């Protein structure tokens, strides 16, 4: 009969209308910014540099290898390597970035810099409310603005941070084991009895 389909459509709409008052499932609006959706853990927005401990300069994991700068698809990272070295988390002296700029107006949040970093130094942040009225420098983040602590990383990506910590701890243990055996070996070598003095007759 003519009009049957229309009536079915009208019934469907009426059901949605009534449902939007009673069920939360129908009315899914979240009134930002007073209400916010719970953040999803794996979300990625813009990169930041991780540092261990309290001092962001001493604890920064980045060794300025410039791999992320090369691999970044839109080329938004600019790194200047330092001339001196500082010890990293296992104590080995490494270069550090004298300058590490990311232009987040260019960054497309692809996460390739995170994937290629061999030192777990750069990770993805979850901050997205970064609007600024400063057109020319406001979205160019320098080393200090990018440096965030490992505790912060644990807060925003707990599972990932734990995995990274486990990897680093493992690497550190291996390095320490290597140094211990090396120390023992060199100690052994150092304490090695030199060639018998000639003329010692046994």
């Amino acid at each position, binding site marked *: 009969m003519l*009009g049957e389909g229309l009536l079915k459509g009208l019934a469907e709409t009426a059901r*949605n209308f009534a449902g*939007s008052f009673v069920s939360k499932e129908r009315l899914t609006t979240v009134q930002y910014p007073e209400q916010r959706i719970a953040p999803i853990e794996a979300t990625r927005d813009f990169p930041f540099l991780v540092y261990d401990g309290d001092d962001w300069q001493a604890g920064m994991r980045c060794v300025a290898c410039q791999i992320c700068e090369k691999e970044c698809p839109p080329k938004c990272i600019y790194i200047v390597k330092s001339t001196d070295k500082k010890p990293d988390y296992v104590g080995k002296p490494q270069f550090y970035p004298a300058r590490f700029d990311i232009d987040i107006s260019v960054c497309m949040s692809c996460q390739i810099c995170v994937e290629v970093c061999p030192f777990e130094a750069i990770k993805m942040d979850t901050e997205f409310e970064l609007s600024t009225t400063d057109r020319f420098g406001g979205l160019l983040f320098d080393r200090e603005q990018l440096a965030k602590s490992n505790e912060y990383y644990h807060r925003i990506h707990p599972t990932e941070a734990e995995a990274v910590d486990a990897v680093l701890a493992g690497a550190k243990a291996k390095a320490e084991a290597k140094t211990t055996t090396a120390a023992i070996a060199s100690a052994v070598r150092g304490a090695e009895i030199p060639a018998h003095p000639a003329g010692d007759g046994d």
Partner: protein
Amino acid sequence: MTERLDQIFVWLEQWLVSFLPGSWRPMACIVLSVVAIICLFPALFALTTVFERKGLARIQNRIGPNRVGWLGILQPVADGIKSLTKEDIVPLSADAAVHFLAPVLLVVAVFMGFAVLPMGRNMVLVDMDAGLLFFFAIGASTELSVFMAGWSSRNKYSLLGAMRAVAQMISYEVPLLMSSVAVVMITGSLSLTKIVAAQNQYTWGLPHWYIFTPWGAAGFLMYAIAATAETNRSPFDLPEGESELVAGYHTEYSGFKFALFFLGEYLAMFSISGLGTTLFLGGWSAPLQALNWVPSWIWFFSKLMLSIFVFIWLRGTLPRLRQDQLMNFAWKFVLPLTLVNLLVAAAWRFFGDGWERWVVCSAVVLLAYVGMGWSGMRRGHFGPRSYRYAE
């Protein structure tokens, strides 16, 4: 007490007018009623814009405007301020006088239509013997204003939009009138107050509204379809569709004039719903005899708002018809059905009381509707389809 509440506005008017000397009183009475209508219906319009946006939003599972005032009720104030402060652009080549008059004519014509609607017991501004005729005559002049708008803009596309709108409105005038003629036939009078009085009777507590008769139900359906098309509402809103090529007759209007067009469209919706309520839904009469203690004007306005709600519901659900399909629908489906409805109404009248007339009239109406619907679909070669899957 209920009598007092029912007649409160009449009493208020008499009291206010009693302060004036005798010869001034009739004039003051009329002026007061006119002022009341001019204040009431735009306020209702403001409320309706919020309801429409929130209603559509709820249908689409979202919240409508809710920032301005509690639940967004002051949104029309914000919209009004916006449209008043916009620059009023009149194209250089446009016919300035006609360009200015078009929205004014629309609003004036629509307001005049409210003069004959009985909004409660003893609450009609002008109790004309040919009230229905007056209403339709004035209503037709809204089409003139649409054409004036399109013509004066000196814009190819506005003109095309205006032509389409006028063609649509003219085509649907005929079914609108024909469905009301059935009501006139049965009541025996063109006066709207008499039509309401005829429906204000009760049998076993149930009212004699015309919608509860077979010819009345069919008539109401045709009237509703024609009313939706007259006011350019979905699914007949091609003349003002945003996703169409032609932008519509009010393209060249900005600021307050556009707001007037908007106002005129909604007021036309109110007045046509008001007329439909009067003709088919019993005007200000209560649905059950037991509910007569509720004031009559509350019934009238509730039925009016119910019609508006149905308009909003239709808008949120149905896609729009193409122009030629719209016209085909009017001339080849709605009009023949209204003619059949006239015959059925006549048969109803001459059958005399009893159950036979119910059966015969319902059967004829249903048969006509189903038959025409089926042949219409066949002629257009559309229907539901089933799909096969590849092997």
